[in-house]
């Protein structure tokens, strides 16, 4: 099992290497930091632009492979370069990573947790009211693109606040700037800001996970080993709880890594719409500015989290299913 997982890690590292290289080449080909500098008012001289580009390491007159070489040399030493505005990518990365990770983590945990529970419930109450209600709910949710969902939440909060006459629901930013007070005040403030974005990210996940868990549970309900459990003298409910739950989670692990991709994309939209200073909004800003170093940094973050999600899925699979553990 350890051998298998370490093999997966090695495979992941190789993928990461290729992914970073690819994203560097694509960013360099697609983005033009030169245009960004030339558009500045007053228009800087050609020499100034060249100088700025050279400082960034994104001078388009140098071959892209050479630029990548320089970039990766610094990257392995822990320096992701500078942004077009002269700041440190590392510093920006550090500021934003916590914001994004919090949103992704809460979204994933709430989404999978609630989704699995809801799916289980629906399967057990198959064709009855809870099942039908959940089916309608998940269909509706899955039919609303994340960005529309975020907009609806935002407008809803705005409308609610207007009706209430003061700010009840927070819908911009990740915290109230300049807030003073105890740790508890800060935590409450963060939680209040987190509610809507987290709901946006998690809701889609709840809907899709509940569909999968429902299907997986129904499969298990018809399985031979659940029948054996009943033949031993367990009631159907206890048989499902003791023998069905774990096996029904096994197929879900495969879905987890794909589901995370969807969730990640949703989080990018959500950050942008709710004005969260996270990786997603950084990416959007940087892409518009032609900031290659920042874009590559975000891609690196994306690749690492996606690979990590895949690895977590593998570990979960191996933990749940002894059949995939090779001795």
């Amino acid at each position, binding site marked *: 099992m350890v*051998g*298998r997982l370490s*093999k997966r890690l*090695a*495979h992941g590292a*190789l993928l990461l290497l290729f992914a970073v290289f690819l994203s560097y080449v694509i960013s360099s080909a697609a983005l033009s930091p030169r245009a960004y500098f030339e558009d500045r008012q007053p228009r800087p001289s050609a020499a100034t632009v060249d100088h700025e580009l050279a400082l960034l390491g994104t001078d388009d007159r140098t071959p892209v492979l050479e630029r990548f070489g320089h970039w990766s040399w610094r990257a392995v030493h822990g320096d992701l370069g500078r942004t077009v505005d002269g700041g440190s990518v590392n510093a920006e990365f550090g500021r934003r990573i916590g914001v994004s990770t919090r949103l992704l983590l809460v979204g994933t945990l709430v989404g999978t947790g609630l989704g699995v529970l809801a799916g289980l419930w629906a399967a057990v109450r198959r064709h009855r009211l809870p099942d039908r209600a959940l089916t309608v709910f998940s269909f509706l949710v899955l039919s609303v693109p994340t960005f529309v969902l975020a907009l609806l939440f935002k407008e809803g909060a705005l409308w609610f606040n207007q009706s209430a006459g003061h700010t009840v629901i927070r819908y911009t930013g990740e915290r109230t700037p300049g807030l003073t007070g105890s740790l508890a005040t800060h935590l409450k403030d963060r939680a209040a800001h987190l509610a809507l974005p987290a709901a946006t990210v998690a809701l889609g996940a709840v809907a899709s996970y509940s569909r999968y868990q429902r299907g997986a549970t129904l499969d298990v309900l*018809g*399985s*031979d*080993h659940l*029948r*054996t*459990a*009943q*033949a*031993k*003298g*367990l*009631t*159907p409910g206890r048989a499902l709880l*003791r*023998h069905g739950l*774990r*096996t029904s989670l*096994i197929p879900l692990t495969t879905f987890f890594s794909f589901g995370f991709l969807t969730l990640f994309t949703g989080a990018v939209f959500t950050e942008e719409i709710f004005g969260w200073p996270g990786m997603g909004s950084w990416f959007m800003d940087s892409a518009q500015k032609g900031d290659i170093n920042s874009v590559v940094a975000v891609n690196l973050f994306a690749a690492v989290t996606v690979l990590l999600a895949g690895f977590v899925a593998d570990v979960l699979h191996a933990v*749940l*299913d*002894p*059949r995939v553990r*090779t001795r």
Partner: protein
Amino acid sequence: MTAAKVLDVEDLHVSYAGSSRTPLPVVRGVGFSLRRGEVLGLVGESGAGKTATALALLGLLPPGARVSGSVRLLGTELVGLPVRDLARLRGRRIAMVFQDPLAAFNPAQHIGDQIAEALRIHQRPQSARELARGRARELLEGVGVPDPSRIARSYPHELSGGLRQRAMIAMAIANDPDVIVADEPTSALDATVQAQVLDALENARRATGAALLLVSHDLGVIAGAADRVAVMYAGRIVETAPVDALFARPRMPYTLGLLGSVPRLDAAVALTPIPGGPPAPGSAGPGCSFAPRCPLATEACRAGEPEPAGSEGHLAACVRQDALAGRAAADLFPASAPLRRTSPGGAPLLRVAGLTKSFPLPGSSGFRLRRKPAEVRLALEGVDLEVRRGETVALVGESGSGKTSTLMEIIALGAPESGTVEIAGYDTSVLSRADARRLRGSVQILVQDPMASLDPRMRVADIVAEPLHAQRVPKETIAARVPELLRRVGLDVQDAERRPHQFSGGQRQRIALARALAVRPELLLLDEPVSALDVSVQAGILDLLRRLRDERGPACLFVTHDLAVVRQIADRVVVMYGGRTVESGPVTDVFGSPRHPYTRALLSAVPLPDPAAERARARIVLPGEPPGAGERSTGCRFRGRCAVYTALGEERRRCERETPATNGAGPPGEHTSACHFPYDAKGVPARLRPEPEEHPPVR
């Protein structure tokens, strides 16, 4: 029989929800009773309603099934009992052994824990987990599992089929039940392992004093294990009798035909396939459901469903019982042609010598530049065999012995890892493209599951024509040949327009055979072609294969695990064990005086469909498990299970060090074996006396 009734079933009906909302009756008024300590064999072909009956007893039918009638367990009515009360009886008073132990165990829990759970469910208060685990190990030991502590800590997928099934039996008897229901407990197992499992089941039953309902399609198993037998057909019990009476004097034409279509190990006999097939659920009646296939049927048979009648506990649901008296199966049903063995004089068509094949270990694939030599399993370690024109050679052995791998190596028409494959004089390792194409046409294969081997989306005509297209045969020739092929395998020409799913299992195998014969092959490879079929259908296919031989059809290499079938169809037999050829020769010689200890054990494990003979014969129960593919070994691979080796003194070193070579070499086709200490023609092992211990007959 004076023992008390423990289970009483009356007028049991089961129906499943059909696709068009009309319920499909699968069990129609079944009644029987079981007394303490009694074994009732419930026998019948696919779709007869055996499994549904068994599941209905425990209330384990899938949701949507409707049950009516009465099942009384020790006086308690089970039909309609609330789930909670039923759960208290299941596993404690009535337990079940399922057909497929791999699927029936929870894949993610240790075997020992699953057995321990069966104990603790019914304990008030529950005993400590450790205590229950200890009892689980005792139970495993009780069913003859070697190293019970290790087995208890294993997951189901880590065990062989035989061990899993014995663990399932241990779980069933955990609470000393009064009734054990075993649904086809050995149908997925090799004959040698089947013998172990049947022993375990019998011992478990003796230890608990429970009554056993043994559901099986295998008349041999029933003959050896049952006290009484109930024969099911189309959802009803059509005949029930003490085992000897049923086999000796069946009173229902169906039973007679069924008995007549079972191939026997002890003689090549004319088989009597029963024409037609059983009615689909819901379409039986109004009269006797067997009447459409019955040669004795009269107007009275078609008028109404006959009730069981008879005397001395021998009841048959047949109004023509008297007309049946004294008749043999061959008097009623069209018997197949007798087997004419060809003289071993043909020219060699296929020659395999020293063939080896290895597979990479699972998990060692993926990105890898060098493959370490240790990470392979040997599936074939040295196969020698020969097929001559016009003859049928059977390749036998347990699962994992490499039979199918051998066929696949032959059909691949490529260069083997080592050894040679020669077909019609061509060495397959040095084939030119043109020769390869020609050989593709002259070697065809027929596999076990005809449904799976026919593309369900194609018409029969296209299926049969596919190899002809691949051989670039002109369209007009194909159009002419397809109907001729269909006729030859006993199908209608109109069948060409239908699709595989519209046919029964036996007919599908006929389609597959027509396809294989389309390009007029010289060599036909058959991989368990009849083992997925019911006996009455199997007999028809065997008959067809025999007739093809007589028409100077292709030479056949016939892979099977069923030695009784070998007796009916083959000229010569090749026995494989652990990827090696251990014995070969004419069927009569090898079956009559087997030389290799393994062949002897294999032959003795086959149950006879004859209660008296089955009780009388000596049975060698092989210890241990059949070896899977393994690492390269030195010496004889069989020695771990070999009675001769166990009894040897210093001489056993030879078995450990030297890989036995084929001895008794004479002219090709003669009886040979690869054993250092083979048995002689009188059944006495060379240089060994006394006779190795043979287990006494089980019953």
